[in-house]
Each structure stands twice: as structure tokens, then as C-alpha cells.
């Protein structure tokens, strides 16, 4: 290609144009796949609200984005596991503890899946959870503030992929390890090829406090070493059970692409978590020494705390026999999804050419009858046919994930054949199929994982975009595609680029979230920040050794104080900025020249702190970064930095020009 370009520039151009033309002629291309009324269906007039909030994982951005459906408009990017200088997340003194781990401050992670909290099997609009894949953690985002309120680290884990899926009352959010590893309380300094002896899987059951959402690792299940991929809780009749897809039952430790694809069938692991609770109560759990961080945001002090915890309770499922059962599932299952009735469990073998659907009732009977095919690493393997409801034959290539419409249909994404396939759960017949552009991963129907789907739209999240948008060099946006699924046939009505890589997403009706008692301002009277400044009369600058604390206020449009002198080289300066505004949508920003740090964005009534260590003597401007009024450009000040040991007194003021000095 490169060499031809050199010699045949013009013909190549012509060929490229022809190729484009031909590609545009392929059936079901972008133009013809979109019907005439698509624009009207996705159109939300300026000033009107969307029907659904759509919470989308940001993948390797580490964040979570919030879109409106059906418009596809991006409304907010919530910083979760990665620092965000725009919002001061991970830069302000108050937010730094949120990103603390047993390995110290970790500025990035990979957020794959989201899970909205549920009550009685329906989304309740309180919280949305996200998983950190790389340094295993769970985050809880408060939907009254759209802010990450809590992050808990998961010991004994590596690659927290099978997470954060929840039960129908959010009793538990689970976190299954992708990589099996030696447990944290024994040495991991062993040869890699001792996988079979030394490597274990762990699944954390993290309880969620019904009132305040606070998370706690209730217990962990220790399992044979395999890779856990995805999971779903049982619901309705199968409430009390959890289902996890597993691969690498070959227990390979290298070239998994080949070595973990040897067996005809891997497993779905069925977990009777009510039974696990009984064992826990009976004291069968072992206390294991570990180290993990538990970080909480305090809404009254506007400050996070990080606590290092040192113990977790582990139940070994090879010893406590009747917690776990393996169901054979073809070819490295990925998605493992439970239908709204709780009866059907859909396994998606990502290398399989069929979709097996298991029956919860048949599984219960098989366990009662001990219809086993022996054991795998000490865990009973249920006979495939004994648990099987049936198989969807030739649905497509590379099935990944399934969601449901509550009308008896399932929708499965096919990565290899780039399509979404709608099929009937009872008779296992394909009803409709539509293309995606391109290589779809997850898909999402509002409530499509719950007992009560709200099946008006389906969004497909694609891994590859290629020619869908204007080209932007080698790196292209990932994309989402919106389908109207209210009728028998699916219809694509919109596609839009996303931040990071969207893995899973969930949606909820707009009213459920916007009427949940959302916070608009922090009441200044309730502000319990230790460095709050409640009014300009309290503004001051205090020296404590080499630490200088600036108690500063901001209001349209000035800071108080805005002239500070007497800071010396070697000082650490802490700007504790309180936004005195009490009106919705009036944040102020704060930045100071040369700070090896980010900006602050301070919400009305909030106090936030920026640490600044001046690196030279001189005059340093500071200003408001968030356009706040017609006099925003006037919202500025100066800080004078003198040499170490200087005798310039510490002074501060606003509005009073000191008598001008006539000579230096």
C-alpha cells in the first residue's frame, strides 16, 4: 500500500472514491438502515428534557458518563476512578483520599460496568455502582449529587471484571476476580506455572446499607483458580442465587487466546448465596489478614476519608459443598444474563455458534437429583442437558451479552457478526436482527436486567467506529447506537460518540432520577468543613510553621482576600475556598499561576482546598476559572512570594489598596 501510494497517487484516489461508493452500496448501510422517521424519534427539542438518564461506563477513561435518551446528548462526566483536573477530582485536598488504595494513591483505572441500585427488582434511582478493573475496587455514585460517594478496594482480587452486579434489593453488589492469583495472605512469590496449586479465585459479596448506601465486604467466596467474567443475580423465583460465567477452566497461565480455548465447554457457576449466609452465620468463615482501603465522602465536611482495613471473612466453596455448582456452558462464556422472570439463564459462549438457555427450575431439580457429571476441583458439575431449557441455533457469530424487554424476548449482541439479534425466550426462535457499526459489545435496555424492563429503546455500545464519523487521526471515538424496540422490528434511530470505551450502561426514567431529591446547592449554614469561611468577615490567612492557610471566600465576582503578602519560599499554601453563593448552577473556579496542581471548581456553599507550593520568588496571579458574571474577568487577585527568611509581614486584604509605595 505504502509503495503504491508513491507511484500511483491519482489512480489510488480514484479507486478510493470508487471503493467508498461501493461501500455505500452495501445493503443496510448507514443511510438505508435509518428509516425516514428516525430523526423525529431521537429528536428532543431545545429546552426539552430527555425521557431517560443513561449511565455509561467510560472504560479506560475510568469515569462514568451521563447521557440523555433518546437524544444522545452528553450531560455530565462523573469522575470516579481517574483524576479529573477539570473538576479538581484527585487534586483537591478533600478528594485525594477517594483514590487511596493499599498501594497508595492510584490516579487511573478502567471502569467497565455499571449497576443501578434496585428495590423489589426495580431500579430505585438512589445509587449507581461502577467497578475498577485494574486495581480492584467498587465505587458508589450518589444520584442526588452525581458524585462518587464511596470507593472500596477488594482484597484477594485481580482484574475486577465480574462486577458490580447486584441482587434485586441491592443486598449485595458482587465483585468476581478475572485473574485468579495467590491469596493476599500467602506469598505470591511462586513460579507462574504453579497456577493449579497456588492460584485461587475470589468473589466478594459487598453489602449495601439500605439507608445510606454504605458498602462493606460481607464475605468472600474462595473458588478454584479460573477466570470469572460476568455475572447476574437471580431474581423473583431465583432470588438467593447468583450466576457467574467462568473461562480458562483449562487453568492456563500463558497464551490464553489459545490455551484457554481448548475445552468444548467452560462453566456458569451457580452460587446459592443464601446458603453462604447460613455458613457465615454458623461461623464457618475464616478471618483472613488482608489490606484494603475504604474511602468515604462526607457531605457535611465536603471531605473524603480513607481507612485501611485489615481483615476479611472467607468461605471456601470446595469445603462448604452446597454453595456452588458448575453448569457446563459452551466455549468461554462471557455474558451470563437472567430473564425478568428469574427462570432463564442465558449463557453467551463468545466462541460458540449457539446460545444455551438454562432453566432455574431444572437446575434445582438436577441438584436435588444429583444429576452430576462428576466434579471440577471439588465442585459438582451439573449435567448440561439436566439444566438446559434449550439452545438458540445459529443466532449469529460471537454472542456476548443479553438484555430483556419483559415481553418474552431477549436481545443478544454479536461481536463477530456486528449485530443485535432479538429472539423469543420460550421457543428460542430468532425474531429480528439489525446490524451495528461495528463490533458491538454490551447492549442496554432501560431496566433490561431487572424484573421490570422499560423496553422502549435499546442502546448498542460498539468497539469499532471506523468510518462512522469525521476522521480524527489514528484514534477514533467509540460509539453508541440507539434502536427503537417498541415494535416487532428494531429500528436504528441515532448513533453518537462516547467518552472512553463504553462497556456496560444502564438507564432509568428521567422522572425517577430528577425527582429523587437532587441537591442543588450546599447550604452554607450546614457546611462543617474545618476550614470553612462563612462570610468575608471571617476571611483570613493563618501561618502554622511553613504551612499557610488561606480562608478565602468567592462570590460574584471577587475573592476575599484577594491581596496576600508575606508568603515565603519553602511555604506550603492551602487555599480553602468557600463559595458563598446559594443559587443553583453558580460554581466558582480557582487557579493560581505555576501551581503543579489542577483548578478547583467549588459548588455553591462548598469549601474546597488547593495546595500550592511556590517554586520561586515573585508575584503570582490567581483568578476565577468558571465564568460567573459580567465582571468575571475582574475576579482575580495577587499573592506575593518573598524569599525564605524574608521579614515581609503576613498581610491580606480585599478592597483596600494599601498606600502606594513610591520607591522600591
Amino acid at each position, binding site marked *: 500500500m505504502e509503495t503504491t501510494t508513491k507511484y500511483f497517487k*491519482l*489512480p489510488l*484516489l*480514484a479507486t478510493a*472514491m*470508487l471503493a*467508498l*461508493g*461501493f461501500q*455505500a*452500496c452495501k445493503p443496510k*448501510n448507514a*443511510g*438505508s438502515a*435509518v*428509516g*425516514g*422517521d*428516525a*430523526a*423525529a424519534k431521537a*429528536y428532543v*427539542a*431545545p*429546552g*426539552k428534557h430527555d425521557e431517560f438518564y443513561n449511565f455509561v461506563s467510560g472504560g479506560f477513561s475510568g469515569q462514568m458518563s451521563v447521557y440523555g435518551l433518546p437524544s444522545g446528548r452528553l450531560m455530565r462526566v462523573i469522575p470516579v476512578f481517574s483524576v479529573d483536573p477539570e473538576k479538581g477530582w484527585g487534586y483537591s485536598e478533600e478528594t485525594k483520599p477517594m483514590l487511596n488504595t493499599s498501594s497508595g494513591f492510584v490516579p487511573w483505572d478502567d471502569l467497565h460496568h455499571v449497576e443501578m441500585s434496585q428495590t423489589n427488582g426495580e431500579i430505585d434511582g438512589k445509587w449507581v455502582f461502577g467497578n475498577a478493573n485494574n486495581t480492584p475496587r467498587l465505587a458508589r455514585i450518589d444520584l442526588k449529587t452525581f458524585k462518587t460517594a464511596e470507593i472500596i478496594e477488594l482484597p484477594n482480587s485481580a482484574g475486577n471484571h465480574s462486577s458490580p452486579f447486584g441482587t434485586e434489593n441491592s443486598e449485595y453488589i458482587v465483585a468476581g476476580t478475572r485473574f485468579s492469583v495467590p491469596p493476599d495472605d500467602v506469598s505470591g512469590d511462586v513460579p507462574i506455572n504453579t497456577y493449579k496449586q497456588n492460584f485461587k479465585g475470589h468473589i466478594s459479596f459487598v453489602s449495601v446499607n439500605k439507608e445510606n448506601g454504605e458498602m462493606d465486604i460481607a464475605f468472600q467466596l474462595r473458588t478454584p483458580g479460573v477466570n470469572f467474567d460476568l455475572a447476574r443475580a437471580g431474581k423473583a423465583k431465583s432470588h438467593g442465587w447468583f450466576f457467574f460465567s467462568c473461562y480458562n477452566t483449562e487453568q492456563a497461565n500463558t497464551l490464553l487466546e489459545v490455551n484457554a480455548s481448548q475445552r468444548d465447554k467452560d462453566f456458569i457457576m451457580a452460587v446459592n448465596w443464601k446458603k453462604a449466609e447460613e455458613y457465615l452465620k454458623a461461623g464457618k468463615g475464616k478471618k483472613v489478614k488482608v489490606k484494603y482501603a475504604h474511602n468515604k465522602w462526607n457531605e457535611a465536611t465536603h471531605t473524603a476519608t480513607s481507612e485501611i482495613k485489615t481483615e476479611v471473612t472467607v468461605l471456601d466453596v470446595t469445603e462448604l459443598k452446597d454453595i456452588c455448582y458448575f453448569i457446563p456452558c459452551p466455549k468461554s462464556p462471557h455474558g451470563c444474563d437472567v430473564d425478568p422472570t428469574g427462570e432463564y439463564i442465558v449463557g453467551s459462549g463468545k466462541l460458540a455458534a449457539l446460545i444455551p438457555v438454562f432453566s432455574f427450575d431444572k437446575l434445582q431439580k438436577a441438584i436435588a437429583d444429583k444429576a452430576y457429571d462428576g466434579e471440577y476441583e471439588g465442585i459438582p458439575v451439573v449435567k448440561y442437558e439436566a439444566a438446559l431449557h434449550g439452545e438458540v441455533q445459529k443466532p449469529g457469530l460471537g454472542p456476548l451479552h443479553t438484555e430483556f424487554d419483559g415481553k418474552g424476548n431477549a436481545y443478544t449482541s454479536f461481536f463477530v457478526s456486528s449485530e443485535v439479534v432479538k429472539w423469543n425466550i420460550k421457543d428460542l426462535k430468532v425474531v429480528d436482527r439489525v446490524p451495528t457499526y461495528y463490533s458491538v459489545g454490551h447492549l442496554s435496555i432501560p431496566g433490561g436486567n431487572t424484573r421490570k424492563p422499560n423496553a422502549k429503546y435499546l442502546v448498542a455500545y460498539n468497539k469499532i467506529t471506523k468510518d462512522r464519523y469525521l476522521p480524527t487521526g489514528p484514534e477514533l471515538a467509540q460509539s453508541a447506537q440507539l434502536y427503537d424496540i417498541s415494535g416487532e422490528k428494531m429500528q436504528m434511530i441515532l448513533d453518537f460518540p462516547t467518552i472512553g470505551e463504553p462497556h456496560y450502561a444502564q438507564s432509568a426514567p428521567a422522572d425517577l432520577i430528577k425527582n429523587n431529591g437532587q441537591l442543588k*446547592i450546599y*447550604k*452554607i*449554614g450546614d457546611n462543617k468543613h474545618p476550614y470553612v469561611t*462563612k*462570610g*468575608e*468577615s*471571617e476571611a483570613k490567612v493563618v501561618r502554622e510553621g511553613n504551612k499557610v492557610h488561606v480562608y478565602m*471566600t468567592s*462570590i*460574584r*465576582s*471577587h475573592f*476575599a482576600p484577594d491581596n496576600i503578602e508575606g508568603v515565603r519560599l519553602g511555604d506550603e499554601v492551602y487555599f480553602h475556598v468557600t463559595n*458563598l*453563593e*446559594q*443559587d443553583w448552577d*453558580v460554581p466558582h473556579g480557582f487557579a493560581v499561576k505555576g501551581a503543579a496542581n489542577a483548578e478547583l471548581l467549588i459548588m455553591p456553599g462548598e469549601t474546597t482546598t488547593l495546595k500550592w507550593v511556590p517554586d520561586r520568588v515573585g508575584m503570582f496571579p490567581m483568578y476565577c476559572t468558571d465564568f460567573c*458574571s*459580567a*465582571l468575571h474577568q475582574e475576579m482575580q487577585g495577587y499573592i506575593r512570594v518573598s524569599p525564605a527568611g524574608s521579614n515581609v509581614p503576613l498581610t491580606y486584604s480585599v*478592597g483596600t489598596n494599601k498606600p502606594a509605595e513610591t520607591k522600591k
Partner: protein
Amino acid sequence: MKKSFVLFAAAAAVVLLVACGGGSSEPAATTTGETAAPKSMVADASSYDPKRGEGKFNEENTKLGALDAALATKGKAIAETKCLSCHKTTDERLVGPGWKGVTTRRTPHWVLNFITNPDPMIDKDPEVQAQLELCLVRMPNQNLTEDDAKQILEFMRQNDGAK
């Protein structure tokens, strides 16, 4: 040669596009056309009473007696947090006008309405509009409760020498 080749290519592309036809040519129908601004943003001067302002307070429900010093002290504390960043208690302008004399220039219910419900009044009141031209900063809604507002009014009266 060059020219003809480009022409050919362009023609080919056109032919292909025409041949393909494809997607519907119907214009996208719009569902909801209105883009009404929130009510608070609409300046309807006709029904506006510049003596009363707009809000919960009127002459009937705002009766003032002798100065309540305890109430004024509470008002001062709230004002220090929420108001005095921008207003001086003298007649000197800071961001907004000084407070000296405000209780003689305005009716008490106008003051209470303005500090609890500033946005519609900034849009409608001719004198506030004139003030905005001088100050250029819209007075923020500081989310005062009715009690907060009454306490602040009492502090303003004290500041103006009411007994």
C-alpha cells in the same frame, strides 16, 4: 490527463450515489416545536407593581412594629455570610449598592420580595434594571428563607437607625 481522471472519478461517485438512492428523502418531522423560556425569564412588565415587587410579601402580610434588636442581631449574622461580600452597610457601593437608607427608599415588602425572589424582579423592575446597568452583576438568589429575610430586614432597619 490529470484533469480527466479526476472528472471520471467524480462522475463515477455521482453515478454510484444516484444508483444507490437508498435512505428516505422525507424531511425529518419535528415533534415538539416550542422552546418556551422558563416563566421567571419572561419580563411581563404590565402586571408588575414596582411598589410591591413580586413575591410572597405585600402590605397586608408585612406589618412592622418597634425594632426587634434580637431579630436584627440574627439578621446581621446571616447578612455577614450571605450579603456583605457585596454590600456595605454605608451608602457606598461595593458590588451592589450600599444598604444605608434602603428601608426609607423601599417599602418593607418590596425588600422582602427582592431578597427572596430576585430573578423575576431584576427582569421587571425598572429601578432594578437601572441599577443593573451600573453594577452589571445580577444579585444572586441566596436561598433565604422567609425568616432569614425578615431578620435581614430588621438588621437593615437597625442600620438605618430605626428604634
